[in-house]
């Protein structure tokens, strides 16, 4: 393998916190961020999606580009 060992310098992480490996201090923050994310997603999807997905896909069919 050719991957290099490097120091961890980045601090941004999932939904704004942590280095990607949730530790005790971050778990609660990540859990809250997750809840907020899914709540926002529910609202966005409810507003965006049609009631008949197959019909939407057929009606919005795109021709080939480049």
């Amino acid at each position, binding site marked *: *393998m*050719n*991957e*290099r060992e*490097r120091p*961890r*310098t*980045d601090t*941004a*992480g*999932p*939904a*704004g916190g*942590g*280095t*990607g*490996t949730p530790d005790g201090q971050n778990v609660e923050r990540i859990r809250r*961020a997750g809840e*907020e*994310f*899914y709540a*926002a*997603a529910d*609202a*966005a*999807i409810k*507003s*965006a*999606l*049609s009631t008949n*997905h*197959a019909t*939407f*896909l*057929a*009606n*919005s*069919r*795109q*021709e*080939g*580009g*480049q």
Partner: protein
Amino acid sequence: MAQRLLGQETEFGFAAFSPDGARLGGDRPASLLLAVAGRRLPHLPDMHSHGMFLASGGRFYMDAGHHPEGTTPECPNPWDVVRYNLALEEILTGLGAAMKAADPGIGEVMFFKSNVDYSGSGNSWGCHENYMHCVEPDVLTEQLIPHLASRVIYTGCGGFDPFAPGLDFMLSPRVAHLRQVTSADSMHARALCDTRNEPLAGLGYHRAHLLCGESLCSHTSAWLKIATTALVVALVEGGVRPANAVPLRSPLDATRCFATDTTCRAVVEAASNTYWTALGIQYHYLALAEARVDAPFMPPWAGEVCRHWSAILQRLESAPYSVSATLDWAIKLVLYRERARRRGISWEQLPAWNSYLADLASVLGRQQPTLDAVCELPLDELKRMASQYGLCALELPAFLELRDELFELDTRFGQLGAGGVFAALDRAGVLHHRFPGVDNIAHAMVSPPASGRARVRGACVQRLAAHPDEYSCTWDQIVDNRRNRRLDLSDPFVAGEAWEDLRKAGPAETEYARDMAARLRTLRERERQHVRF
């Protein structure tokens, strides 16, 4: 430090509907969009198409398949490329609203920042990158390929393989449409690198034209795509040969492998009998760039690119989850997993469902089995086939409904305007995708970049747009048909206006001017015919 010019061409998905929800087909929506753009946007007509050059110095026109296409002006840095692309999206959103206002027969206009169609058509459209360079094109292509194959771990827009019968999540669904490593055919044999020799400039400059990228919602992802690739181009121009250490045995297979691996741990083989992950290849390119940030052939922003490049690789290496509010594919992955869970289908079960669907597709003779088609098969047969994968056939309707829901969700994710899912998540403040310096979009809608020939072109458009019938424009020149003069923009770094009087020119130039004037008259006539709706 070396000056660079970069840009991006984005084809958008486009659909217009009547007030009662019927899709408007044919040329009418595209013609109306162009007509509205012609009325609302200061512009000079494009010499070669039914399009226009804008006050930003960029271009707007209709591309193959009725896709509106916006091209950024030639930009001196990756921040500007992202800014000008966002400005094009704002412009397009405004044009959609103006279309509705102009024609009572239009009830809704949608633009999608996506690149694949999920209706079963197998169609794709592009988001192409352009990098000016002075290297032998074949050399640059060869040196770019491992980078392009592996960068999908942070540049993929996420989505599903549109050719699969089930739900095959991919970091980069555009990869499913790539058929070659290099090709000059951008519609039937799409490749990682396009080999058309169209520099659109003189003085020995070339243009690397990349077809494998995707339209991205995350500003961070969009910036990284352009910034890292621009640095690789600079490295190669400086004589560095990064791909020599990573001669991928099969670049297309490697790209597909990386594009389907959400763990970023998949390994591919190089011809040197070494094995590489996408992260490994990216760290290799990064190390070469980091060692040369102050080299004269590197741009002044090389150090900043390396810092952000390194940071994203570290996050992906430590845990892909750490980018789940930042990168397009990772945002989609958490979103879609949750939708599947709520429908009672575990993400880990998808491979079994996909195998089951592949069997059904084979039996039914269709690429994507629908519920109606599946119901034509005997229930006992459906149960027998499902049991081979440990599945219950009675859950098939739920899976097919989930598939269509996620296909629509993936299309709606990048829908322009307030109704898009990404836009809604961004407004809710749950994403962390914004990038410092990618701002002042309103300025980019009406003003060119601060340097390069786009600055001159944009200034001309601003000043001359009141008389569009008198001028025609293309990337490397503006022709004044009334006064018989021409502004040469073949030098990408030209700093001022120097109009050439074609009346004093030789016969070749005079003939050229006549030809351009004739083309413009033809285009104008066609345009008048097109806008009769």
